[in-house]
């Protein structure tokens, strides 16, 4: 965030205070070792009560990877994430296509834009029951889909077997969004692709506009 001019404030899981931040990012990592299910235990962390309240009040909340899993577990986002279809952890740069501009991450990004961002997860296969899936698609809640470099969505470019190649979704209100790829690992050109830049820039814009 700092690279883009924002300021990060780390929040401790056992606290109950969001320290007045303008946006909440639940980062990746392995909360509680991801034992049981990814995010299953973390979503009961005391700070999550505040995050739920913040989200209900329309505050922008972004979940990345493990953070996405936590938001699904907490019921803030639809669906669930299970083990990759290969059953193996995957760390690789993928392409995702932006499917909706109605999220704090994509407000400033055109639908159809293709971004290069790394994924690194063992449990990133997005699933939902048939009805849920129909609703997610019907209401346009899909924010990102895995795709090829030219934007084609097909099985070959679906790294983990996610239903409908879904890489990220939002809630109905559009203020909570989660995704498996790691935009924060795609900001610094020294380290590789920079597909995360427009997303995090959009989040900053969005958060500032609300102040």
């Amino acid at each position, binding site marked *: 965030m700092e690279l883009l001019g924002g300021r990060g404030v780390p929040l401790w899981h056992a606290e109950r205070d969001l320290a007045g931040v303008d946006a909440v990012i639940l980062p990746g990592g392995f909360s509680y070792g991801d034992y049981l*299910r990814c995010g*299953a235990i973390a979503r009961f962390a005391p700070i999550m009560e505040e995050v739920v309240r913040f989200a209900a009040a329309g505050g922008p909340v972004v979940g990345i990877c493990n953070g996405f899993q936590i938001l699904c577990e907490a019921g803030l986002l639809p669906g*669930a994430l*299970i083990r990759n279809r*290969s059953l193996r952890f995957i760390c690789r740069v993928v392409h995702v296509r932006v499917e909706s501009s109605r999220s704090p991450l994509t407000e400033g990004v055109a639908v159809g834009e293709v971004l290069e961002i790394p994924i690194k997860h063992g449990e990133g296969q997005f*699933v*939902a029951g048939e009805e*849920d899936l129909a609703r997610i698609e019907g209401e346009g809640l899909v924010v990102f889909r895995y795709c090829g470099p030219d934007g084609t969505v097909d099985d070959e470019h679906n790294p983990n*077997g996610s239903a409908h190649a879904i890489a990220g979704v939002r809630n109905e209100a559009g203020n909570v969004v989660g995704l498996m790829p790691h935009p924060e690992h795609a900001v610094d050109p020294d380290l590789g692709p920079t597909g995360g830049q427009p997303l995090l820039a959009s989040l900053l814009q969005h958060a500032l506009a609300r102040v």
Partner: protein
Amino acid sequence: MKHRFEVLVTLRPGLLDPQGKAIEGALPAMGWTNVRDVRVGKHIALTVEADSVEAARAQVEEMARRLLSNPVIEDYRILDAREVPA
């Protein structure tokens, strides 16, 4: 009193089970071609200290629903309690 329970958490029918599929895929190479519908879930055993088995069971029920399973994709089942010698 201590009661030991076993909770079985299974993936909802209709959802794809990558682990089950992998096992099914490995079986023929080992000579077993007659196995179908392999589904992998979780088995969680735990001991609850409670005054009655009913109270203990109610608590396990709640833990299974809220923590041990994710209702979006999983079902659970509780196996009978055994009393554990103190």
